[in-house]
């Protein structure tokens, strides 16, 4: 990561309802950076300031002194900046899909962004087609459906397609998996991974769900009470379960298994964060002692 970060924020503060009796301090000096091609998780309990931070990434909230937000080198506090272009490059998907659908028909809704960008009809159609394909919605079947009559899962896909249709370079998902059933969640995670790995999309994933974070991202920021309290690779951060616990978070169960084993004096080389890694780590431990003849049999057959 030698090149300059794509998004860089420094000493960011934010107060909601400033100068009123209801004043709420949401951010108390936050530093973060997002590089091109990364996938980064922002985790923390409700009210920790996660959403407030990411809304700075595409200029929905502008920084105030002394805070600074740079997107591709551009200072977001400059009122003359081309904000539409920033919002095209940094796409933001919100939690509830209902809040993000504005048009009567699915096709028109996904075309909303491209239309605002001034694309011509034919290009728009292609763009909508592409976006729908990316999220797994059949173009012919869905383009003329009423947005408000879709099922929850279909709405969510439409909302994601609506943002993808802008062809953003960075995609922010603000708790977009909350309330999704496991089937929908698996599909969504697979599609996001594909977008990241195959299309080089930079992902910023905001979530309180540690299992998901472990699956999807390489690096995390942990937030609590308006500050970044931990940061590092997913493994580094998950290696400190007690600290996470203090911030109202837990680790994936497979990580917990490794920690508990360590506590009982059983050495685990590398702290696993996914089930796949967990199986390998535990297998290493089991096969290092010759308890069962089958272990050696298995090793012999490999």
């Amino acid at each position, binding site marked *: 990561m030698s090149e300059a970060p794509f998004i860089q924020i420094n000493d960011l503060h934010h107060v909601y309802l400033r100068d009123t009796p209801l004043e709420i301090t949401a951010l108390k000096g936050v530093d973060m950076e997002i590089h091109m091609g990364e996938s980064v998780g922002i985790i923390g*309990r*409700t*009210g920790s300031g996660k959403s407030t931070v990411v809304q700075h990434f595409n200029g929905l909230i502008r920084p105030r002194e002394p805070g600074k937000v740079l997107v591709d080198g551009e200072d977001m506090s400059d009122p003359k900046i081309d904000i539409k272009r920033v919002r095209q490059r940094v796409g933001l998907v919100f939690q509830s899909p209902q809040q993000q659908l504005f048009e009567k028909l699915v096709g028109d809704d996904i075309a909303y962004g491209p239309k605002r960008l001034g694309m011509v009809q034919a290009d728009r159609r292609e763009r909508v087609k592409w976006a729908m394909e990316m999220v797994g919605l059949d173009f012919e079947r869905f383009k003329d459906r009423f947005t408000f009559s879709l*099922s*929850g*899962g279909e709405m969510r896909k439409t909302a994601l397609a609506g943002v993808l249709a802008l062809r953003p370079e960075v995609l922010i998902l603000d708790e977009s998996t*909350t*309330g999704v*059933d*496991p*089937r*929908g969640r*698996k599909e969504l995670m697979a599609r996001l991974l594909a977008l990241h790995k195959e299309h080089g999309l930079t992902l910023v994933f905001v979530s*309180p*769900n*540690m*299992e998901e974070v472990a699956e999807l991202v390489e690096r995390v920021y942990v937030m609590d009470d308006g500050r970044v309290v931990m940061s590092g690779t997913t493994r580094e951060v998950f290696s400190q379960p007690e600290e996470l616990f203090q911030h*109202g*978070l*837990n680790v*994936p*169960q*497979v990580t*917990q*298994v490794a920690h*508990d*084993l360590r506590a*009982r004096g*059983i050495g685990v080389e590398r702290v696993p964060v996914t*089930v796949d890694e*967990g*199986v390998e780590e*535990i*297998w290493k*431990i*089991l096969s290092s*002692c*010759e*308890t*069962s003849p*089958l*272990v050696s049999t*298995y090793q012999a057959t490999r």
Partner: protein
Amino acid sequence: MSDPIVRMEGVHFHYNPDSDFPIHALQGIDLDVQAGDYLVIVGHNGSGKSTLAKNINLLLQPTAGDVWVKGLNTRRRENLLAIRSSVGMVFQVPDNQIVATIVEEDVAFGPENIGVPRDELRLRVDWALEVVDMLEHRHRPPHRLSAGQKQRVAIAGAIAIKPDILILDEATSLLDPKGREEVLRAVRALNEEGMTVIAITHFMHEATEGNRVVVMEEGKIVLEASPRAVFDHVEELRALQLDVPQPKELAYRLNGRDPTFPTDVVMVEELVDEVERRVKGGRRQ
């Protein structure tokens, strides 16, 4: 065994039965719930689990088959209030079920509806808020609470009518882990005091909360077991794309490599114990 508190026999339910696209949401459900049970119903969106719940407290009436609650058939309209006051229900979105602008006034809404006299009202409201540990917030406006707190207010509102059965219809799916734990703790306490609980969820790991699990898919019950036994059906659960707790998944896959590794492991601690036993017990010195 005594008579079940809820009995469903051959229940079918169609949405828009007379339209061109009727939806057959429940396709022949037979289910008994015993008093004191903690039944967990797991399934994806559209599997019919919410429809099933709404058929219990007469928010919906079966298009075929019968439902009895405490021996009262839901087909008879005159049983409506008796049935609804025996069943408390908490819904998915915390905000959309709170009626009043002050916590304690909202909790009073249900008992007010069944005409509980004023002195008794005060006692019930305090009791219900105490159970969910929200008494200190009783004078606050609900929109200033966290999602987990709101959901606990909703539970207080549901139990303030002193029901025998509490139904949670995906009541935890929009909460963060902390909020979810707060809510489950309150529900556990209620169940220990004897309230029958029916929890509907798409989180398989919440199955371990209860004493019985029912898995639904496409309007039918496809699996019914104890929480431990249900996870023995790893392949079926996978086929249904339901999540299996990570310790179970680990044990199952370790068993694939070493068939002596037990698969009846659900909790983190059980897995750790097993690995420890094998490592330490097997170490030849």
